[in-house]
């Protein structure tokens, strides 16, 4: 049985949905309340890190493997850049080309909403990927030596 104790696992199971929901809320309401894509993305990455710490690496790698994490990181960065390119349809780079609605609405701010989501995806995937790289892959040589000692 990998990971931490039964108490930690149960609390994680209860809280993990709320953590992801809070990250998504911080991202989506970035243009209305304090927060934004960066903070929301790091909260979502925190959720994945909590899964890794509580259930062990097998469960979290099954949910989001290192390959997919780096791929989603690239997709987020490219989509941010693509939104900037799409601004040329209205005139210049990073033009806010979507029609703006009345303030204080969810879809009121044109491209800011889309850029927030792109940054959120990028940051969440990349922070989780670097956590994987620092904690799991770093243990490889020591595991190798340990397994050879067992043999």
């Amino acid at each position: 049985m990998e990971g931490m104790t039964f108490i930690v696992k149960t609390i994680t199971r209860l809280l993990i949905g709320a953590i992801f929901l809070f990250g998504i809320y911080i991202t989506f309401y970035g243009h209305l309340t304090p927060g934004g894509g960066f903070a929301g993305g790091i909260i979502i990455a925190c959720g994945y890190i909590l899964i890794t710490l509580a259930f062990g690496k097998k469960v979290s790698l099954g949910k989001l493997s290192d390959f997919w994490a780096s791929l989603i990181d690239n997709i987020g960065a490219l989509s941010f850049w693509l939104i900037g390119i799409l601004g040329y349809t209205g005139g210049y780079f990073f033009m806010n080309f979507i029609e703006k609605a009345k303030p204080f609405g969810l879809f009121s701010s044109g491209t800011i909403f889309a850029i927030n989501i792109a940054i959120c995806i990028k940051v969440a995937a990349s922070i989780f990927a670097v956590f994987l790289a620092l904690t799991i892959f770093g243990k490889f040589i020591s595991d190798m030596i340990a397994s050879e000692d067992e043999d």
Partner: protein
Amino acid sequence: MLILFYSLLIFCVVGSIIAIEIRNILASVIAAGAVGMALSILFLFLGAPDIAITQVVVEIICLIVLIRSTVSLDNTSITKHRDTFAILSSLIFFGLFLVFAFMAFQGLPKFGEPLMRVSSYYVENSTRQTGASNIIMGIILDYRAYDTLGEATVIFTSILGAFVVLRAKGKKRKEEFDQVKVGIPEKEDLPKALVEAEE
């Protein structure tokens, strides 16, 4: 309220000094985390909730990652004496910095009263022009979106570099046949320092 602000400021300075000076590396990481938490409360006092939220979440991530990656090598401690010349020169340069900073800060506007030229334009027109009621988001993702793209590129490149450098060891784990194909080095063939560090 101002007393609380200044006491938090002093707490930050003391915590930083403890984080530098303490011998145990885990205690040093925890002291740095405490400084970050106090800094986020300071940002709240200064009326910057965006920065405060970002500071809190980044601090938590840093704390977890640093503890996870340093807890296995917490026996790192400095035993030999420090270089006297380094201490002396850093003290002299710190004194010079204090003198010139005192002279330079005389010319700055008073604390809390910035020159409101560009920012007053943003405050008046941001909500109408960008549609975002959070003016900070309107600035960093509309007026200054190009800056944010550069910032995102910096994060992307640094994390890509870190991922590539750290991944080189773990890449062979998935396939069992690597030992036959590539030949994983035996324990004796590994660099001696690496084996000692791992043990």
